């Protein structure tokens, strides 16, 4: 028998619709413009651990076919709008990630992404907290730097550590197997964060972790006061990674360098190089206004709001039913 029924219950879908209305109202009140950008684009992301789904267009102008990447987030196109003078913008759209499926992952999911011109990451953390309180009716958020979180729960200083120290930590915590398979300092730090810190933070109230090590800057500016860290933050609540924000990198040369570094890392890890988004680089060259931006997983937010244990409970049809 075909399993045609939705993954989420109809009452859950009604509540989902209400939450999305609340979000739209939140931004309308602040005069943040709703936009839509393409889900299909001629380039994807260069990140070591993010994979695009791809599709191919065949038709007028592209007789030999054009590879189009389903976007892992609408970030690059939204930054082009900002560079073109859109002012503050938000978007609620689908995003796609290959290789990701599980209790908290579906390869197609809904993302809320917004950019605030003139904000830094601290101001954006404040605004994110407002939105979370509105939707989740939660307690005031906790805030810890990445370094504080590590020192508190592992006694490791992530800004002054070594591959050796991190592997020794894993071995002394009964994880010699992981010490063997993780090679880079960043992979080791990310695993230790996921397995030893994430379960300890944000249980009662959302927790903002900010000032990630520079090697995990992604598209964030490096901190003006401490160049060992980046102006990047993440939000965790009840064991779920909910959002990732940046005081956005606006320097074209630095952005290009990071894309190229990503591609070198991909090759070192046996992956294929990815095309660099030249549209974004051209926009940065023209000038991206100083801004902060954040991407928040809507399906996970709805999971938290409705007390669900699995992402599929907030999706109409998950991977196994689509």
């Amino acid at each position, binding site marked *: 028998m075909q399993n045609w029924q939705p993954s989420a219950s109809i009452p859950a879908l009604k509540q989902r619709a209400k939450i999305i209305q609340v979000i739209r109202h939140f931004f309308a009140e602040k005069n943040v413009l709703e936009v839509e950008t393409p889900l299909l684009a001629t380039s994807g992301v260069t990140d070591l651990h993010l994979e695009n789904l791809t599709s191919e267009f065949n038709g007028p102008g592209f007789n030999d076919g054009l590879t189009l990447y389903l976007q892992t987030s609408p970030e690059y196109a939204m930054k082009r709008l900002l560079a073109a003078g859109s002012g503050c913008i938000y978007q609620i759209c689908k995003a796609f990630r290959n*290789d990701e499926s599980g209790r908290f992952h579906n390869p197609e999911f809904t993302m809320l992404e917004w950019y605030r011109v003139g904000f830094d990451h601290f101001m954006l953390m404040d605004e994110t907290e407002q939105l979370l309180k509105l939707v989740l009716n939660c307690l005031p958020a906790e805030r810890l730097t990445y370094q504080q979180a590590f020192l508190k729960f592992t006694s490791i200083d992530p800004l002054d550590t070594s591959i050796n120290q991190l592997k020794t930590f894993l071995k002394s915590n009964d994880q010699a197997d992981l010490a063997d398979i993780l090679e880079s300092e960043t992979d080791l730090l*990310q695993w230790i964060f996921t397995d030893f810190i994430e379960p300890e933070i944000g249980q009662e109230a959302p927790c903002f972790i900010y000032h990630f090590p520079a090697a995990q800057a992604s598209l964030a500016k490096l901190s003006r006061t401490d160049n060992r860290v980046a102006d990047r933050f993440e939000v965790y609540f009840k064991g779920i*990674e909910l959002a990732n924000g940046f005081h956005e990198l606006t320097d074209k040369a630095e952005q290009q360098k990071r894309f190229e570094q990503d591609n070198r890392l991909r090759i070192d890890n046996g992956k294929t190089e990815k095309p660099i988004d030249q549209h974004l680089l051209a926009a940065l060259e023209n000038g991206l206004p100083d801004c902060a931006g954040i991407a928040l997983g809507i399906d996970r937010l709805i999971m938290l709001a409705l007390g669900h244990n699995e992402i599929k409970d907030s999706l109409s049809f998950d991977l196994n039913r689509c």
Partner: protein
Amino acid sequence: MATVSTNEFKGGLKIMLDGEPCAIIENEFVKPGKGQAFNRVKIRKLISGKVLEKTFKSGESVEKAEIMDYELSYLYNDGEFWHFMNNETFEQIAADAKAIGDNEKWLVEQDTCTITTWNDSPIAVTPPNFVELEVTETDPGLKGDTAGTGGKPATLSTGAVVRVPLFVQIGEVIKVDTRSGEYVSRVK
């Protein structure tokens, strides 16, 4: 050597770990937004019975364990081995005490058991969920007593000891749930 990718992990899959066949009990996909993906699995080692957690990088491959389950009929015990037979092909297979474990007391001739083999050698024997055995020893109960008041121990023909209601007498055949070791009913 057959291998499986972490993408094929699911409850029940049999893989090799530290040279021992294991069954996956639970499999969870773990991935930080911008980090490496992992499969965190709960595994039961099939020989030692130990349950442990293990984490793999997603996309890696591991060796598959050649584990097979056969439905075979129990024949007899020759003092060292327990012999089972495939009722269709008449092929026989012998399991040792390690594979039988605590289940000797539930083996009834002609009953169909599940024999689990690793590389064609039996590593576990699972008796049927319900077996019927004769009571060989128990205190004579009081007549007219009904079930549910604590009961009394009874020794069965295989040596198994089960708590039975007071009305059960020597010589009667009872039905027992082998998973819990509990009395179910009398058999007429």
